Structure formats: C-alpha cells, structure tokens
C-alpha cells in the first residue's frame, strides 16, 4: 500500500520549500514548521487549499503569497468540500485528456477551529464520499489569529480570552475533543497524529497520507507561543514534551487498525519514561493559574484524564 521512501535529514534540508520564507507567522510559530515539513513530503505536483486560519492569514497578505504551488483559500467551514471539488475536477479533466500530469495530489490545511468546530461537517461529508485527499490539521488549540478564543481543541484548564482563568473558573471547563478518534470512526483508510519535533515521523506520515487511496487525516501538534504564553524558542521542545507526557501520543490507524508510532511505543514499553503532565503545563503561561493553591487539583484532573486516554489508546493498539 505504501512505497518504501527512505530519506536523510540532508535530503529534506535540500528540498525546496513550497511554503516560502517571508510569511508573517509570529516568531517561533510551530504551525509554520508543520506546513514546511508536510510540504516536503510531496511526491509530485500538488494543489493545496486552506481554510481561514492562522496559516492562511500569514501566507497570503496581499499582494504577497508564500505558496510556491497552486493554492486556493476558502472559507472557515468548507476546506474539505473545496478539496473534494478539486479532486473531482482533476478526475474528470484527466478522463477528458485535458491535463498531462499523471497524478496531482490534493492537500487541505486547516487549524483546530476550522476542523474541530466549524469545518467538521464538511470534513465528515468529504470522508464519507471517499475523495482522495490529505487533510492536515495543525492544532494550536484555540482560535489564535483572532485573539486566542477557546475552541473544541483547547484542553481542560487552559486560560483563553473567552475562558479566562479568574476567581470563578479555572480556564476552560470542558475537555479536548478527541478529533482523530472521531475520524477513525469514519472508517477511513488512514488517520495519524504527528508532532513536529519528531520530524521524520511527521514527514513519513504525511507521505503515507498522500499515497493512500482515499481520504487521509493527519493531526499535527503546533505549539503557539503567543496563545500558549510560552517562550518562542521552546515551541519544538513543547511538542516533544507533549509526546513524552502522553498528552499528545503519536499513533496511526491504517484501515481502523491502531498502532503506536516509535516515540510513543518507547513509552508504552518502558512506562518509567512517561513524564508527569506537570512538566508540560509549567512551560506555558496559559496554565500558570493551575500552580496556585486554589486550582492545584485541576493538575491532578488533567493527569487522570491523560492517563485514562493513554490506557484506552494502549488497549486499542493491543498493548497491555
């Protein structure tokens, strides 16, 4: 099903960027790293499409564009519908002999707002119709470009401008929606989670998502220094610690069969390597209030929830 693609760090470093320099993402934006890495995984010509969101805003401020590939911006809610339209058009143009290229891949990019909340019905419909495209979700866990409003992807206890931590609530009261599991439930051929620190894993998964026949969903973790109130230089480090604390475990589901990816498998086989969530939380200002006596019990809640979801994942992967 997948080709054997071997690459070294230098191969990736040499490959030209399809997401060019000069985009106006904040300093230390991990979502920009995710975009660059995903676009390094392409096997030929592509057409990209983006939902409204950070990466659309920063890459297409008139008259500049950061895309070295055909790219269409669409509204917040319909990036998956747009991708299915592109794929259907390519299919018919090929049938009529109007395009010469053997194969053109379609990649859709959307943030967590455009996926968890606003875009889910279009995504669900496109997957159900079985269009051949890769959907990349860069999850920075809130509506960052409009001013850090909470989304379905914001974790429990995080302070945002619409769920501010104060005397009454400890940041967001609800929990993060397990979007990748929802996508697996669609019975789609390929679903994976990836973190930019594990760049080799991320690029391999992006390539698999492109190669697979039918829809593929890639959930990538993208720390946001502005919204998470973290040090810009620590963005990639946070994406590593999220994996090591099992807050964001790495796995892939091929035709609904879960399997852990190497960085998380190491933790599953040697549980003493699993770090406490405290280490992840203390790096970010959006969880600062949890380290006060009033809200300290929220940290235990987050730890319990993380452990519960991790155990559930291990069961799905056939470990334990």
């Amino acid at each position, binding site marked *: 099903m997948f080709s054997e693609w071997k690459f070294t760090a230098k191969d990736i470093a040499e490959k030209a960027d399809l997401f060019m320099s000069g985009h106006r993402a904040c*300093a230390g934006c991990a979502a920009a790293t995710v975009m660059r890495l995903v676009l390094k995984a392409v096997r030929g010509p592509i057409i990209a499409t983006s939902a409204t969101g950070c990466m659309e805003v920063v890459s297409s401020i008139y*008259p500049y564009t950061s895309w070295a590939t055909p790219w269409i911006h669409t509204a917040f809610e319909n990036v998956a519908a747009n991708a299915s339209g592109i794929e259907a058009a390519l299919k018919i143009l090929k049938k009529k002999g109007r395009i010469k290229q053997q194969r053109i891949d379609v990649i859709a990019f959307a943030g967590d707002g455009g996926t968890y909340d606003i875009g889910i019905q279009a995504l669900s419909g496109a997957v159900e119709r079985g269009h051949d495209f890769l959907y990349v979700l860069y999850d920075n866990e809130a509506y960052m470009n409009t001013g850090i409003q909470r989304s379905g992807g914001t974790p429990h206890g995080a302070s945002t401008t619409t769920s501010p931590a104060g005397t009454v609530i400890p940041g967001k009261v609800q929990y993060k929606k397990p979007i990748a599991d929802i996508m697996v439930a669609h019975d789609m051929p390929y679903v994976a989670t990836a973190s930019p620190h594990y760049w080799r894993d991320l690029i391999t998964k992006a390539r698999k998502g492109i190669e697979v026949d039918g829809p593929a969903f890639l959930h990538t973790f993208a720390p946001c220094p502005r919204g998470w109130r973290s040090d810009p230089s*620590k963005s990639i480090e946070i994406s590593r610690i999220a994996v090591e604390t099992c807050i964001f475990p790495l796995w892939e589901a091929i035709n609904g069969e879960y399997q852990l990816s190497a960085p998380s498998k190491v933790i599953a086989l040697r549980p003493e390597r699993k770090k406490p969530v405290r280490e992840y939380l203390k790096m970010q200002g959006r969880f600062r209030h949890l380290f006060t006596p009033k809200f300290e019990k929220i940290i235990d809640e987050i730890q319990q929830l993380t452990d519960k979801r991790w155990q559930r994942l291990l069961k799905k992967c056939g470990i334990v």
Partner: protein
Amino acid sequence: MTVQEKSWKEIPPAGICWKPSTEYLTGDWKTYKPIMDSEKCTRCTLCVIFCPDGAIHWNPGKEDIEFDYDFCKGCGICANECPTKAIEMKLE
C-alpha cells in the same frame, strides 16, 4: 513597506496575490540574532528542518549551513534545538 504599486488596471483580477512573499523581508522583526560556531556544528541540519521561516539553508556545494538574516525572526528555536549548542542568540 507601502510603496506606489501597479494601478488597478494592471494587477490580476479577483484579488490574486501576485508577488512571492520572499520579496517581503521579515528579518527586521528580530531582537536576537543566531550566530553559529562552525567548530561546534556537526552539520546535522536539524536547525534547517525546524526553522519555521525557512531562514536557514543547507548549501550542498559548500557542505555547510547558511543563515538568511533577511527572513530570520529571531525566535531562537535553532539555538534551543541544536544538539551541540553551536548556535548562540546574540542581541542585535
């Protein structure tokens, strides 16, 4: 960066972005500038891979990495991720 550009009769219709963003230099955003120590660097190219701005290039001819200060926003990810700590952030 506001300069007199082409008039509305000359630009592409429907608000199509027609200039590559590489003409827009984001290098003046930075406060700290990454400086590489050539002796400590092992040329692993991790900084090239992690840089969100694509501001570090791998030059295969010279077998060396090159910083593009025109685009570097000074976030410090390269210095933080460097396995040999060969990159130092210096106040510009």
